[in-house]
């Protein structure tokens, strides 16, 4: 392969859209004639024997998969997405599910880890959503979504398995405990080492 054909192969490989001849000439700083000859060379390289082809389409040139491979390409598209929930994501979802609505700083405080990027990614994936700011002002609060409930096989918001232990102490922990009890996730007598 000539150096120019190699360059064109890399460019067509990377570009999400067809690249017009003018663009290819500008990028490679070569004359149209030379580029066209190199495109022909590239077309021969990607012949019927290979999995890809060089085509002129929509006013430009593109590298794409060959038509007879459509079925296998569809299998890739239909593959379930790698949508695993990370431990950080799971922990954040649990905190929001049990204590919603809850703000990002509150989540971070409880987890002892910054929660910003985790919350953002869960919102993007549709598992969390914004639930407004408190009337008295303050940080945006979050709650779980119907998609979250579906994913975890829950009948609705608040349909969560009960918690049984609570060992944290301090004023902040007491607020968390009261909220869990009020929502019915924790028996009223759980935890509290004042026995």
């Amino acid at each position, binding site marked *: 392969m000539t150096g120019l054909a190699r360059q064109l192969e890399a460019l067509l490989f990377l570009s999400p859209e067809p690249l017009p001849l003018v663009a290819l000439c500008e990028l490679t700083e070569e004359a149209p004639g030379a580029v066209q000859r190199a495109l022909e060379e590239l077309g021969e390289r990607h012949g019927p024997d290979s999995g890809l082809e060089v085509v002129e389409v929509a006013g430009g040139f593109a590298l794409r998969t060959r038509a007879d491979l459509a079925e296998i390409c569809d299998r890739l598209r239909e593959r379930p997405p790698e949508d695993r929930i990370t431990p950080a994501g799971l922990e954040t979802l649990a905190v929001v599910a049990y204590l919603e609505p809850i703000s990002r700083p509150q989540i971070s405080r409880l987890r002892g880890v910054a929660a910003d990027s985790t919350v953002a990614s869960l919102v993007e994936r549709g598992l969390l959503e914004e639930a407004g700011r408190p009337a008295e002002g303050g940080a945006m609060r979050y709650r779980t979504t119907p998609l979250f409930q579906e994913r*975890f096989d829950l009948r609705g918001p608040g349909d969560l398995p009960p918690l049984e232990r609570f060992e944290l102490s301090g004023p902040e922990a007491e607020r968390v405990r009261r909220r869990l009890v009020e929502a019915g996730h924790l028996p009223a007598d759980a935890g509290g080492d004042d026995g």
Partner: protein
Amino acid sequence: MAAPDALQQPMELDLFEGPFDLLLTLVLREEVDLLELPLLEVVRGALGEQARERWDAETAGELIVLLAAMAELKARLLLGEPIDEEPDPDALEARERLAARLIAYAPFPRAAAWLAERARDSAGPRYRRVPLEGAAPPPAPREPPEALVAAMRALLVAPPAPSLAHLTNRVSVPEAIGRLQAALARASSVSFDALTAGAGRLEEAVTLIATLELARRGEVTLAQAEPFGDIAIVGRRP
């Protein structure tokens, strides 16, 4: 032209990743004197006000012991010790631990250098990363609701209570320096033992670091009549 004397070169602390990095470099590069170790900045970098780490008690405690061993090492070099003297077993153990820690730490800066080189070597290739288009993907697999309980439980269970003993009477090095300077304003010479009478091990270590820092700055001279004996801190008057 002769190379500038390494001893006269100020240590560029910014170049170091922390006390272990600095100490390891000094120890391996014998031309730099351990006496030049600017302990105050090392301590401040590790534990001081600029370090934003929320240190857990155990880590902080261990680090303080190791830093104290560094201070002790510097004191020993500064004051000198007779060759035939039996060293204090506690001090010896602390030094062994410091040495073991440095040896354990050593591979990681080197591995980091390998990674840096690797990143340079593999900076060229580009990935296509064009998102797949077409039919919407099928729904993601279900998760058991119990996973939520387990995740929540980990947060509601109290972690094993760490000992906070060595953090309760926390003394800062700048405070110790201030106290030492105040003492020297009243008297021309101060006894280290008197200064640290009734103090805990941490406070003693911090006072020692402060003393060595003032010696490094040339504000005081130190004298010790016998090994492990009292140190006389004598102020230098202009």
